[in-house]
């Protein structure tokens, strides 16, 4: 094998025929042309690839590339014309199959031709900027088959008809459909779009426009949405099975526009089944379907949201202004909580926890809760009810959940300071009467308020707890220091309350019975002995007493009464019968309170330890009272109704309101001064805006009130008006 290498080095042309036979090109082309025919006729098996390749190679090498290329175009075109005729001749349903079969054959032939003409593709085509063989074959197919006048429309009609049949529930040959659409895509995206996609979308649009019209006439909203959803899924599935992926967004847009966007208004407001009905009936599935479909179209979600908030505001407004509801505060708040729960659940299960929907919910609640200016009071009453008895037997977590929910409502309140006022009153009553069921729950509520509104908001509430604790210690110290035997004298429990922390009304003390007075004086001496410089005032309107009483037949009972009631009852130790005037003289209890006490002592069935003449429901100034000898009760301990935390009466409400307004004044003034101190000069509108912003965590100040406060500050020379521009205020340091 190494022998030939020993030849001398010589430059020699490659062993091609240097002499060019004039008929060479023609002869070579004939061979290739014959081969192309054979390939199209499925007779290629006998051919030698090497020979064909070599011939094509040599033709290109000897500058007959142009002849080769144009020969190829002519030969292929003639074959395609023949194919076109055979496809045209195919009958009915066989048309697509024939087209598909011929397409596959053409593809295979094209690949073989490309392979043997590889050298031309590599050299001749790029240099002369011709179309490469494979692409050329596709273009020729497109021009001779797809654009053939007898095939173009027939193909489109057949495809659209098949799709239409599938839409009406028939089963069609999806594999064939896929091959044909794939062919259109292979021929270029513009061929697919022009010859199939655009007409397909147009036909679909009119189909769905018609169908949706039909559906909306005969279906309710939920049913319609179900159908629309199914259609949408069908189209998406169709695309995945036999259309171009890029068609998905286009066809879904058609369905969305025709079936949803065009009927949105009507669907949402459909009578008896629209959005409002779904909300009322908690139809999570339908709501979720509506959400998912509507979010596909512009303005869809905002429409749902708007209808929902409008409905919510309307029902909320009815709820908070319904005079029947106002009779029971606990029930009132419970309804609010239930509504909140209901919509929270709808948003989380059906509306994908959409932030915009949550905001809509919050703003709606904020809107209608503040429509009723008793909401702060009622919410506090609800907490009071829960902390007195409602939460008995609940686990710690349950208590937390209830309190958290209340805090949700609290957040919606604009007048948080009003809530504070009421909460303080209710808390005071709970603490002083020892009615609170769980110290932990109370403290937990305080912590929640503190995190929500800051230290300032709860400092007084916490002060109340501290007072309770120190009072206990003080009482222990008091009894430890008393060396004498207490014996028969009454046991005293004093709660020392810091003035200011407690919502107490200074009221003149009533005349205490002598027995009590003695102990009280001893306590006063003890307390002032340890704490110099303090002043003690007795709040007789707030205390309670346990009395041991013996009735006519010797039956003993322990009576649980208020301090006022105790004073009244003690009078009957010395006489059996007293007139109203005598009682008021002896006790010095304010008339309104006295009447209420007497009412609960004499007029409540089963607890009437006093007898009144004449017998009537109300207490008059000239009534007379007798000790009721015949009083019986199956309980040893009898609790005489004390005045529990109740919804305030109208005058009380006015009074509280007034106190709140009074409390707001210094806060507004402080805010104005803070702002002016840093700004020095500011105009009226900006002051109002900034004050509102600073105070909105506690309440919504009234601009008129702010103006009054500004005037008051000018009077006191904190501020002055600008001499030129009267709208400007200037801070006077």
């Amino acid at each position, binding site marked *: 094998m190494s022998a030939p*290498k020993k030849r001398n080095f010589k430059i020699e042309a*490659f*062993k091609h025929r240097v002499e060019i036979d004039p008929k060479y090109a023609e002869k070579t082309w004939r061979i290739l042309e014959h081969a192309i025919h054979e*390939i199209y006729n499925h007779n290629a*098996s006998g051919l030698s*690839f*090497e020979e064909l390749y070599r011939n094509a190679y040599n033709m290109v090498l000897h500058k007959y590339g142009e002849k080769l290329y144009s020969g190829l175009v002519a030969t292929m075109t003639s074959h395609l014309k023949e194919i076109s005729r055979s496809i045209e001749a195919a009958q009915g349903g066989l048309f697509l199959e024939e087209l598909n079969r011929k397409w596959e054959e053409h593809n295979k032939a094209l690949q073989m031709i490309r*392979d*043997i003409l590889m050298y031309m593709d590599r050299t001749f085509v790029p240099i002369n900027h011709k179309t490469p063989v494979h692409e050329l074959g596709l273009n020729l197919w497109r021009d001779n088959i797809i654009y053939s006048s007898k095939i173009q429309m027939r193909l489109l009609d057949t495809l659209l008809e098949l799709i239409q049949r599938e839409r009406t529930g028939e089963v069609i040959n999806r594999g064939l459909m896929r091959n044909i659409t794939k062919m259109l895509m292979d021929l270029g995206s513009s061929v697919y779009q022009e010859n199939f996609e655009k007409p397909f979308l147009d036909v679909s649009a009119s189909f769905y426009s018609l169908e949706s019209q039909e559906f909306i006439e005969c279906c309710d909203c939920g049913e319609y949405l179900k159908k629309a959803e199914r259609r949408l899924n069908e189209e998406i599935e169709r695309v995945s099975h036999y259309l171009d992926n890029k068609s998905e967004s286009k066809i879904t847009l058609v369905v969305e526009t025709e079936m949803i966007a065009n009927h949105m208004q009507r669907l949402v407001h459909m009578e008896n089944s629209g959005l409002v009905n779904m909300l009322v009936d908690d139809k999570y599935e339908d709501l979720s379907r509506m959400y998912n479909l509507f979010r596909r179209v512009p303005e869809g979600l905002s429409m749902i949201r708007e209808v929902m908030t409008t409905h919510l505001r309307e029902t909320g407004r009815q709820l908070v202004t319904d005079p029947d509801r106002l009779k029971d505060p606990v029930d009132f708040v419970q309804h609010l909580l239930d509504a909140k729960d209901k919509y929270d659940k709808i948003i989380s299960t059906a509306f994908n926890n959409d932030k915009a929907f949550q905001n809509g919910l919050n703003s709606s609640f904020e809107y209608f809760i503040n429509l009723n200016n008793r909401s702060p009071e009622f919410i506090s009453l609800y907490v009071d009810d829960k902390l007195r008895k409602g939460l008995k037997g609940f686990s710690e977590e349950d208590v937390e959940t209830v309190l958290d929910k209340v805090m949700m409502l609290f957040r919606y309140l604009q007048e948080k300071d009003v809530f504070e006022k009421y909460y303080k009153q209710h808390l005071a009553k709970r603490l002083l009467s020892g009615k609170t069921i769980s110290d932990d729950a109370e403290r937990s509520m305080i912590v929640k308020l503190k995190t929500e509104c800051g230290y300032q908001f709860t400092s007084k509430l916490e002060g109340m707890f501290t007072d309770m604790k120190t009072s206990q210690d003080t009482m222990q110290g008091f009894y430890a220091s008393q060396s004498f035997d207490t014996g028969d004298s009454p046991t005293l429990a004093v709660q020392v309350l810091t003035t200011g922390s407690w919502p107490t009304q200074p009221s003149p003390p009533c005349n205490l019975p002598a027995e009590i007075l003695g102990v009280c004086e001893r306590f006063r001496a003890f307390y002032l002995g340890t704490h110099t410089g303090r002043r003690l005032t007795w709040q007789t309107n707030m205390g309670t007493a346990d009395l041991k009483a013996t009735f006519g037949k010797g039956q003993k009972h322990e009576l649980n009464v208020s301090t006022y009631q105790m004073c009244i009852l003690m009078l009957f130790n010395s006489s059996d019968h007293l007139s109203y005037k005598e009682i008021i003289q002896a006790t010095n209890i304010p008339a309104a309170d006295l009447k209420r006490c007497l009412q609960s002592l004499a007029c409540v069935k089963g607890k009437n330890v006093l007898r009144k003449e004449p017998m009537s429901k109300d207490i008059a100034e000239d009534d007379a009272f007798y000790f009721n000898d015949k009083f019986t009760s199956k309980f040893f301990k009898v609790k005489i109704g004390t005045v529990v935390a109740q919804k305030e009466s109208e005058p009380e409400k006015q009074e509280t309101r007034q106190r709140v307004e009074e409390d707001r004044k210094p806060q507004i003034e402080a805010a104005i001064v803070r702002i002016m101190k840093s700004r020095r000069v500011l105009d009226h509108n900006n002051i109002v805006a900034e004050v509102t912003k600073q105070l909105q965590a506690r309440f919504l100040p009234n601009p008129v009130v702010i103006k009054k406060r500004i005037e008051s500050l000018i009077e006191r020379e904190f501020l002055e008006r600008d001499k030129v521009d009267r709208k400007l205020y200037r801070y006077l340091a």
Partner: protein
Amino acid sequence: MEGTTKKAEMVKLISAEGFEFVIDKQAAMVSQTIRNMLTSPGGFSETQQGQVTFPEISTHILEKICQYFYWSLQFASGKETEFHIEPEITLDLMMAANYLHLGRAQSIAQDYKLRAREQCGFFGKASK
């Protein structure tokens, strides 16, 4: 059985003079042209018989080509050695490489040819 499978993996390349080279199909398919000949879907005679005749490639060039196939496989798997070409066959080899669509072989041969020409020029000058 083993024989047939082995046969299927081997192909026969025949030179202009009728010399037969039996090499791995994998090696022969380094050439895009031979790959097409052996795999084109139409059932050409080369695909059926597993052999290719090259009436325009002489034995010693085809031998070099076969060597190149194996060298190329090794080169592709990371063993980068030099492929040596005798100066007197560079031109023929270039032509054959062009025919067989062996881009790298063509450029290697071209390098050798240029180098040979430079050396000639150098010697030429020295002898003057």
